[in-house]
């Protein structure tokens, strides 16, 4: 427990404190009026308003499109279901930069729609909303569908035997049971879109900015660190509130429901209506998920042969000090280091949290560990930037800075994956081993490790994918001569010219392939019978 606490104190609490000091402690005095001043600016209010309404609109749109999908995945059995489940999950681990680029290739200037019908959406809010739906489709399908598939259909049948119509039975029995899961999923989507950075950065152009984007602009373009700090605090407060509500709905979701094994609730669709629903969902997935990625790959081959890919190996492009392709190696190295850190820290924290009789203090820490997940990568990156670049702790020139930030974002995933499995290990199994002569260390090795090995691998895979695609924090602190893949993509997109555009597409494709491979490995490792255990965030 000591190590995780120290890690979070040093790399999360300390940077956040530094942000607070930077924003409110001006000229040696605390000036809380700064908050009011900044919020009164019309530009800032515009950003706040946009952040909120686009998040609300994205959430509503995602629910509208994804809930039928959740139903289909929960209740229907059809060929290729496993593959389809993997396909819709791909976006969840895809880097935001890749998603932004893919939608740019679909909807932007010279994009597929532009070529076909002359339609461009990249200057409208629709591009952002659609990208958000793309991203969060899996969140809803997994969270709601996971629960839905475990609800006992006999409960509905019981209601129908008592005289309820089909719809009344659904409304009175299934819907109330699902409501907390829907609420939790909606809150997660709201949180992710509220703190959206990469997508908006790429698709938003100069017109649209969320708080995250505005914080980044204030920091890296206007150099107004104090305003950025105040905005970070506003974001911090908002995210804290959302997370608190989420924790509350999760607790409600845990109230006694009759759950059965998911494999017994699904059956083949019957009748034209159900087949049409299945076809509709398949169509949605193809249009929304497959098409943008396909277009991205297609555009990356826009130059003759592997032209754009070959261009990546040139180091005379002038944008970077090194060839863009070196970003692949950087990303992999950083992601490996970040994964190792996240697994050790997250594993230790999860082990401590799983111990029965963990006090209130420890449970409070549980919630605290989730903060970096929601508090947004930009906060982490900005905090690192202003806190860790001067004595007592100067890591500015150390390569470890990037993996540390990425690990901070990855740790909550590790904990969320490991905690349920560790909690499910019966304490008495450990006691049985102890009485048979196993020392505490051997108990862990002989009892805990075999039971959580898979969860550990899955957690590592998630941490790896998250680190690989991490953009918001990395963009602040990655050194110019050592860009990661997402950072390189963003820089290429920031430059004019077809070659840069094509190289961005090519790099994004590489990143997507690496992430997809990681995900496929994860799907194979998925803990059976614990549906949704890996996907519920």
């Amino acid at each position, binding site marked *: 427990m000591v190590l995780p606490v120290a890690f979070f104190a040093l790399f999360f609490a300390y940077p956040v404190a530094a942000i607070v000091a930077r924003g409110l402690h001006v000229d040696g005095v605390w000036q809380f009026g700064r908050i009011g001043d900044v919020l009164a600016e019309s530009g800032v209010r515009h950003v706040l308003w946009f952040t909120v309404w686009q998040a609300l609109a994205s959430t509503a749109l995602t629910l509208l499109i994804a809930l039928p999908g959740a139903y289909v995945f929960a209740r229907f059995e059809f060929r290729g279901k496993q593959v389809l489940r993997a396909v819709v999950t791909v976006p969840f681990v895809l880097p935001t930069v890749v998603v932004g680029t893919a939608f740019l290739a679909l909807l932007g200037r010279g994009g597929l729609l532009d070529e076909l019908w002359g339609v461009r959406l990249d200057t409208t809010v629709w591009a952002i909303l659609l990208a958000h739906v793309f991203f969060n489709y899996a969140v809803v399908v997994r969270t709601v569908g996971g629960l839905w598939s475990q609800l006992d259909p006999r409960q509905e049948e019981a209601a129908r035997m008592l005289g309820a119509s089909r719809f009344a039975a659904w409304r009175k029995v299934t819907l109330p049971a699902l409501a907390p899961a829907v609420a939790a999923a909606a809150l997660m989507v709201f949180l992710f879109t509220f703190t959206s950075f990469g997508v908006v950065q790429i698709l938003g152009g100069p017109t649209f900015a969320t708080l995250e984007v505005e914080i980044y602009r204030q920091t890296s373009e206007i150099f107004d660190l104090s305003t950025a700090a105040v905005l970070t605090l506003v974001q911090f407060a908002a995210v804290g509130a959302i997370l608190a509500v989420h924790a509350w709905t999760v607790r409600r979701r845990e109230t006694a429901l009759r759950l059965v094994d998911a494999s017994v609730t699904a059956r083949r669709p019957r009748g034209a209506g159900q087949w049409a629903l299945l076809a509709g969902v398949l169509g949605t997935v193809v249009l929304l998920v497959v098409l943008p990625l396909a277009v991205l790959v297609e555009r990356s081959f826009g130059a003759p042969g592997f032209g754009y890919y070959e261009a990546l190996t040139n180091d005379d492009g002038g944008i970077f000090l090194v060839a863009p392709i070196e970003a692949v190696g950087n990303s992999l190295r950083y992601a490996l280091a970040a994964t190792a850190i996240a697994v050790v820290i997250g594993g230790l924290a999860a082990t401590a949290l799983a111990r029965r009789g963990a006090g209130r203090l420890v449970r409070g820490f549980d919630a605290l560990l989730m903060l970096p997940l929601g508090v947004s990568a930009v906060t982490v990156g900005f905090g690192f930037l202003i806190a860790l670049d001067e004595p007592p702790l100067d890591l500015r020139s150390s390569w470890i800075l990037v993996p540390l930030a990425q690990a901070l974002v990855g740790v909550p995933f590790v904990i969320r994956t490991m905690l349920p499995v560790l909690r499910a290990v019966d304490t008495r199994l450990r006691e049985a081993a102890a009485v048979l*002569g196993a020392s505490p260390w051997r108990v862990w090795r002989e009892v805990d490790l075999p039971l959580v090995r898979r969860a550990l691998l899955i957690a590592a895979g998630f941490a790896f994918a998250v680190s690989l695609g991490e953009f918001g924090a990395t963009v602040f602190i990655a050194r110019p001569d050592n860009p990661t893949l997402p950072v390189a993509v963003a820089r290429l997109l920031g430059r004019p010219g077809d070659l840069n555009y094509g190289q961005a597409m090519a790099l994004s494709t590489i990143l997507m392939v690496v992430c997809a491979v990681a995900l496929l490995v994860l799907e194979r490792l998925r803990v059976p019978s614990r549906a949704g255990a890996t996907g519920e965030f």
Partner: protein
Amino acid sequence: MTQSRQSPQSPQSLLSLERATVRFDGRPVLDAVDLGVAEGEIVCVLGPSGSGKSTLLRAVAGLQPLDSGSLSLDGRDQARVPAHRRGVGLMFQDHQLFPQRDVDGNVAFGLRMHGFPRAEQDDRVRDLLELVGLPGAARRGVASLSGGEQQRVALARALAPRPRLLMLDEPLGQLDRSLRERLVVELRELFGRLGTTVLAVTHDQGEAFALADRVVVMRDGRIAQSGTPLEVWQRPVDEFVARFLGFDNVVAATVSGQVADTPWGKVPVPEGSAQGPCALLVRPAGVRVVAAGEGLRCTVAARTFRGTHVAVHLSTEGAPRLEAACALREAPEPGDEIGVVFDAAEVVVLRR
């Protein structure tokens, strides 16, 4: 009172607890318990749920530290000895077999922890599986075992490292009745043959009486009575023990001489009974049905067939119901008016 309590300090005590106390949130769960278990003895702790019997086992195993008092094994204090160094075995209530290992992996676990050589492990596992009646089951997964088989594997696992004290927590709790009755006989035979020292806890008096050399009845973290099964059965010390053993004919009474004054009238008591106010137990066998007009006037309220006899429930004016045990052919019908007399040999004066 014939309480044959082993002095905790007696030299042959393998396990001895002195004023052992465990508190949960300030509430004592074990309250100044003194208990000794001699080498080779089978002691069964009997008590309702919440009486602290499982906590007693956990304290001996080292899974639950004592808040005060002391605990020693072979005369050595165990306060600073962690669970894995105590050399005791514990069979858990629901077995707690390691799900990811097969039968062999479970039974050999303790041997591995103690660093036995591989060949010796194999020999011992084979012997033990033979002993518990599961020869050749070594490669089976534990999920494929029936409840009775799991119980046997758990027993083999606990016995494998040759613990100096074997503890059993509700060893037969989850098995069905006929299997339980068979296994309890097997267990007693086995422990006798191996000379194992056993401390078991159960809430089932039948199990305790069949298994134990000595029964310890617990109530609210304290020892209410300790003695051989026969002693405890024949002479429960107080109303709690009597009722826990299933006797319901217990009333407040006042003894003077050889007679007790009770709501059921005058009841004869054995010679030498303690004088003055007390609780009085009349065993159903001591309630004799006689012709109406003789003895205590009763009405038959209900009768239940119990296999060897018929339990007859009698209601009397202004007194608790009485249960009488009647021979199958002599039992009166519900609604009959009868008389009742009491047999002093089946009457026990209890501590209040």
